[in-house]
């Protein structure tokens, strides 16, 4: 019987890789000295149970719910304005990055975009808190910086892949360069730009909810504040609000995506 079914077929080098992986995992556990056995001791579990119990019931007094509602609105505003800023800055950077103004400028702007993109939002937030002070504006700027790096690169790629014929024919019939771009290139790539922007906005809502941990406004700042004061029931309400916000965003984005059809991905 040659066709005996096999669950797995392991090659030698795969087995070696797996062995190396397994030893690295063991080494990582060893390096951290987590003391998991200590965490699982009866006393630690009792402590943990008390700690969790202290979060319940969540605070749902009208005043606190109002505070959370404002936090949600602030989170949405931070993400929306940040994403919009990023869309504008991304578009401005995408034009040179798509090679319209020569190779040197293309390489230079790509470097800038890479730098903007590789520094995470939270690091930008700490920097922006220094530059603009505590509050939602710092969070807005932080999201704007990181996201413009992401969007700029995506926009530049769409521009490079866009067909040249429409704008070329406008140019040949006498239109200026900017008109050829606005009426020849932009209409073709705009749906894609909007799709990318909406997608990043969705991610930024989730991000805006936690940027507050470093003082950049929104729900995160309320959570950080309440936890620092050991107000567990209040913290619990904020965490529930974050969970609901995430779920709502997931649900709405899935529905919108379905409604918009394939062009908007």
């Amino acid at each position, binding site marked *: 019987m040659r066709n005996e*079914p*096999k*669950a*797995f077929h392991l090659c030698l*080098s*795969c087995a070696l*890789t797996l062995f190396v992986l397994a030893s*690295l*995992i063991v*080494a*990582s*556990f060893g*390096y*951290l000295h*987590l*003391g998991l056995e200590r*965490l699982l001791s009866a006393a630690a579990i009792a*402590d*943990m149970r008390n*700690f969790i119990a202290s979060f319940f019931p969540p605070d749902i007094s009208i005043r606190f719910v109002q505070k959370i509602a404002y936090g949600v*609105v*602030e989170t*949405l*505003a*931070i993400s*929306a*304005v*940040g994403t*919009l800023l990023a869309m504008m800055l991304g578009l401005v950077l995408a034009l040179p990055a798509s090679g319209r103004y020569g190779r040197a400028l293309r390489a230079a702007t790509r470097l800038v975009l890479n730098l903007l993109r*590789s*520094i*995470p939002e*939270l*690091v930008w937030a*700490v*920097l922006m808190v*220094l*530059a*603009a*002070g505590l*509050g*939602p*504006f710092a*969070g*807005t700027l932080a999201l704007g910086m990181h996201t413009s790096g992401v969007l700029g690169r995506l926009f530049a790629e769409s521009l490079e892949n866009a067909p040249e014929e429409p704008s070329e024919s406008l140019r040949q019939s006498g239109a200026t360069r900017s008109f050829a771009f606005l009426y020849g290139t932009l209409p073709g790539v705009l749906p894609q730009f909007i799709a990318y922007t909406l997608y990043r906005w969705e991610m930024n809502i*989730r991000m805006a*909810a*936690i940027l507050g*941990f*470093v003082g950049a*406004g929104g729900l995160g700042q309320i*959570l*950080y504040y309440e*936890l620092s004061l050991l107000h567990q029931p209040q*913290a619990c309400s904020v*965490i529930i609000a*974050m*969970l609901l916000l*995430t*779920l709502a965003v997931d649900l709405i984005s899935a529905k919108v995506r379905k409604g918009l059809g394939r062009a908007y991905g």
Partner: protein
Amino acid sequence: MNKAATHPRDPDARRRATALVVAIIVLWPLLVVAQFNPAVLFDAKNLSTMGTFLRGFVPPEMSAEFLGYVARATLETLAIATTGITLAFFVAVPLALAVTRSLSVSRIGPGPGYWRGTVLRAAVRSLLTILRGVPELVWALVFVRVFGLGPAAAVLALAITYGGMLGKVYAEILESTDTLPARALLESGSRQGVALLYGLLPNAAPEIVSYTVYRWECAIRASVMMGFVGAGGLGQLMDQAMKLLRGGEVVTILVVFLLLVQLADAISARLRKQLA
């Protein structure tokens, strides 16, 4: 030629104008709530703080002692990501198997346990949603208050959030692959474990491995971020350097972070190629 011929009217002008007005009306309150005010960037106090900080960027801090700290923090970050993903894997596998419809015997035909199975799957599915719905940074912030500053909080946060994500994606992979072999095995009476090993995994394993490795890469970035709330690793070092406005140290850590992300990217690409 008259003027109208050289400048033909935009046929869409009215619609565009309306859209612009609506956009401004919607945007205005958002700008107010976000306290949008670029002028604060040029406020004398903020400018001088930022100026001192940025001037500190050159030269980067390169003393042997500091590089030693950075090296230890980098190892810690890697170890957090690895242990976190490992624990997340063990959280995810049982949950994923519980919700995978293509492994359900009770769904095959009318028989006992249909409703029990459906209810169980729905319950585990919502548990997965809750686990991944709260960002890992929130768990880390909470756990730091139980376990104190250090990597334990980050590892547990990763285990919870990434456990939820992996569980959901594993189940999706096991349901979207070719499920007929597993079904045939189940219908001819084999146990679920056999159906999983011989019916589903041969097709689904590469994708599962590749997604897990990709998540490890994300976990590295996440574990750096969790350092900002005190959960150890490079992030904690960067947070301290920023609070003390030590620009040189910040630059060194940032460069190490960027290199680490690149390296993780390369390793993960290689691993995925080899194991998939």
